[in-house]
C-alpha cells in the first residue's frame, strides 16, 4: 500500500469516525455532558442489527429500518430515566452514570451473545473498490460511509438551522433557563437531542461492525475514537468532527503503513499531540494574563 493510498484510505475512514462522533458532539453541544456510554450504545445498535440478520435472515441494510427508530426510542428513554436525573444531581454525575452504563451494556451483551467475535455482512459493495492506478484503489464501502457521514452532518446542520425543533435545540443549548422562560420545554428538547444522538451512534455502530469484527468489549474503543475525532476537530463544532475524524483516520492508516501494529497507537499519538499543543497554548495565554494582571 503506497503512502498516497494510505492517506486516501484514511480520509475515507475518517467518515466513519465522524459518524461515530456526531452524537457525542451533539449531546455535548446541547447538554454539556459527555456520554461515556456513546460507544457502547453504538455497539448495542450493531448487536441488535446482528440479531435481526441472524433470525430473520434479512440483509444488514434492511435491518437498519427497524433498528434506527428503535435507537431513537432507546435514546429518548435513556434521557428520561437516567440522564435527566444525573444532570440534576450534579456536574460530574452524568459521567459516573454513563460509565456505569458501559459496564451494564458490555456485560449484558457478553451474557446474551457470548464473548466471541461477530461480524455483520456488508453485501457486494463491502468488497468492491475502484482501481484508480496500480498504487491507488478506493474502497467503495468506505466511500459510501463517508457519503453517509456528510449526509447525516448536513441533515443535522439543516435541522439545527432551519426548523423549529432546531431553533429550540440551539436556544436550550445557549441558555436552558431562559429558553424555559420563553415556553420551551427543555427536558423534551434534551430527550430529543439524546434520541438523535443515539440513533446516529447506532448507525455508526452498524457500519463499524460491517467493516470490522466486534465483540462485547469494543464499545469503549468506539467511544475513544469518537472522542478523539471530537477533540481534534474542536469540541462542540459539528463540521469540526468531520475534520477531526479525517485527521484521526489518516493518522491511523499512515501509522499502519509504517507498521500494522501502529494503527491505533498513531491515532492516540496525534490526539495527545493536539492536547499538548493546546496545553502549551493555554499555559502561554495563562502566563500572559497573569503578567498583565
Amino acid at each position, binding site marked *: 500500500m503506497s503512502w498516497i493510498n494510505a492517506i486516501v484510505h484514511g480520509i475515507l475512514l475518517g467518515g466513519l469516525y465522524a459518524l461515530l462522533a456526531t452524537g457525542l458532539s451533539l449531546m455535548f453541544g446541547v447538554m454539556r455532558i459527555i456520554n461515556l456510554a456513546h460507544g457502547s450504545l453504538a455497539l448495542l445498535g450493531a448487536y441488535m442489527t446482528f440479531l435481526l440478520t441472524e433470525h430473520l435472515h434479512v440483509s444488514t441494510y434492511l435491518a437498519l429500518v427497524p433498528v434506527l427508530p428503535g435507537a431513537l426510542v432507546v435514546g429518548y428513554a435513556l434521557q428520561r430515566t437516567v440522564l435527566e436525573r444525573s444532570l440534576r444531581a450534579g456536574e460530574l454525575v452524568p459521567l459516573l*452514570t454513563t460509565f456505569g452504563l458501559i*459496564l451494564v451494556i458490555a456485560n449484558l451483551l457478553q451474557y446474551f451473545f457470548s464473548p466471541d467475535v461477530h461480524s455483520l455482512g456488508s453485501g457486494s459493495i463491502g468488497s468492491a473498490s475502484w482501481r484508480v492506478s496500480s498504487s491507488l484503489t478506493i474502497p467503495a464501502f468506505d466511500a459510501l460511509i463517508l457519503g453517509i457521514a456528510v449526509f447525516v452532518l448536513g441533515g443535522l446542520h439543516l435541522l439545527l438551522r432551519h426548523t423549529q425543533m432546531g431553533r429550540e435545540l440551539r436556544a436550550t443549548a445557549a441558555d436552558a433557563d431562559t429558553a424555559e422562560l420563553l415556553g420551551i420545554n427543555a427536558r423534551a428538547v434534551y430527550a430529543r437531542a439524546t434520541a438523535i444522538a443515539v440513533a446516529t451512534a447506532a448507525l455508526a455502530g452498524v457500519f463499524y461492525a460491517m467493516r470490522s469484527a466486534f465483540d462485547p468489549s469494543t464499545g469503549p474503543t468506539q*467511544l475513544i475514537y469518537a472522542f478523539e475525532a471530537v477533540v481534534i476537530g474542536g469540541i462542540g463544532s459539528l463540521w469540526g468532527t468531520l475534520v477531526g475524524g479525517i485527521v484521526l483516520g489518516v493518522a491511523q492508516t499512515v501509522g499502519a503503513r509504517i507498521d500494522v501494529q501502529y494503527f*491505533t497507537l498513531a491515532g492516540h499519538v496525534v490526539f495527545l499531540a493536539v492536547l499538548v499543543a493546546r*496545553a502549551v497554548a493555554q499555559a502561554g495565554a495563562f502566563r500572559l494574563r497573569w503578567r498583565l494582571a
Partner: protein
Amino acid sequence: MSVAVERLPGVHVQRWTRTSAAFTTALGGLVAVLAFAPVLFGANTLNNLIQLYFLVLLAMMWNALAGYGGLVSVGQQAFIGIGAYAVVFLSVQHSLNPFLAMLLATLIGAALSIPIAAVMLWLRGGAFAIGMWVVAEVFAILVSLDASLGGGTGTSAVLAFNLRYDPAHRLKYTYWAALGAAAVTLVVLYALLRSRLGASLQAIRDDEEAAASVGVRVRLGKGVLFVLAAAGCTAAGTIILAWQLSILPEGPDSIFGVNWSARMIFMVLVGGLGTFEGPIIGAVVLFLLQQYVSNSGVWYFVMLGVIAIGVAIVLPRGVWGTLQDRFNLQLLPVGYRLRQR
C-alpha cells in the same frame, strides 16, 4: 493546623469530638494489630486482606481526585499497570530485589504523572475522563508492543520473587507492603487535607470558580492531588503484581483494564464521594461482595454498574455521606465544626 479562624463571641471552634478522637485512636490500634496478622492467620486470610488493602488504597486515591479535585478519571489503571510493569522491568530484567523494585516503581509512577498532569489538567469534566482513558490505552499498547516485557501475552514475576523468597515469606512481605502502603497513604492524605492546602482543596471541591476568585491556587491543588493519586495507584499496581504474580496488558480485565476504574468508581460512590471515610467503607463493601456474592464474571460487573448508577442518582452522598449528614458524624475529621458555648 494554622488555619486562621476568626474568634466569634459565644462560638467554639473545634476539630475533634470525643467520638472522632476515640475512633482515630481505635483505627491506629487496629492497624497495629493488623500488622501481626501474618503471625496469627493462614495464607488464605492474608491473601484476602491484601486484596482489601489495595482496594482501600485505590478507593482513597480515586476519591482524592474526584471527591476533592473534581477530576473524574476513567484511566487511573494507567498507573496500576505502570506500577506492575515497572516492578517486572526492575526485578525480572534487572534482577533487583522485588520489594525494593515495588518502592522504586512507585516513585517512577509519581515522576511519570508530572508531565501527564501538565497536559491533562487543562481538560475538564468528561474530556479529562476520556483523556486519561486514552493515556491508559497508550501505555497498554506500548507495553504489549515490547517483546521484552512479554508483549501482548503478558508476563509473570514468579521467578523474581521465588529466587529470593519462599512462597510463605513472599506472602508475608507482600502483606506488610500492602498494609504499609494503605496506612501511609491514609496518613498522608489525612495530613494533606488537614493542612492549609487541604482547606483550599475542599474549597475547590465545593466550588472551583468561587475558590479561584478568593485566591485559591486551583491548578497547584489539582496538581498535588493528581501526583498523589498517581503514586497511590502505582503502589497499588505493584502490590497487585506481587499478589497475583502474572499480568496481562490488554483487555478490560487486564492490569491496564478499565475494570479497575469500575471498581474504584463503585467503591467511592457507594461509600460517599468527597467524604474522607466513605471510600474505606466502599472498599469494605466491595470486598464483602467479592467474598460472598461474586468476584468476576458478567453479573458481577452488571451489579457494580447498576448499583453505581442507582447510588449516583438516589444517594449522591453515598452511604457514609448520608449517615454523616443525618447524625452529624465525623470520625476522621478533616474540617472544623462550630459549637455554641
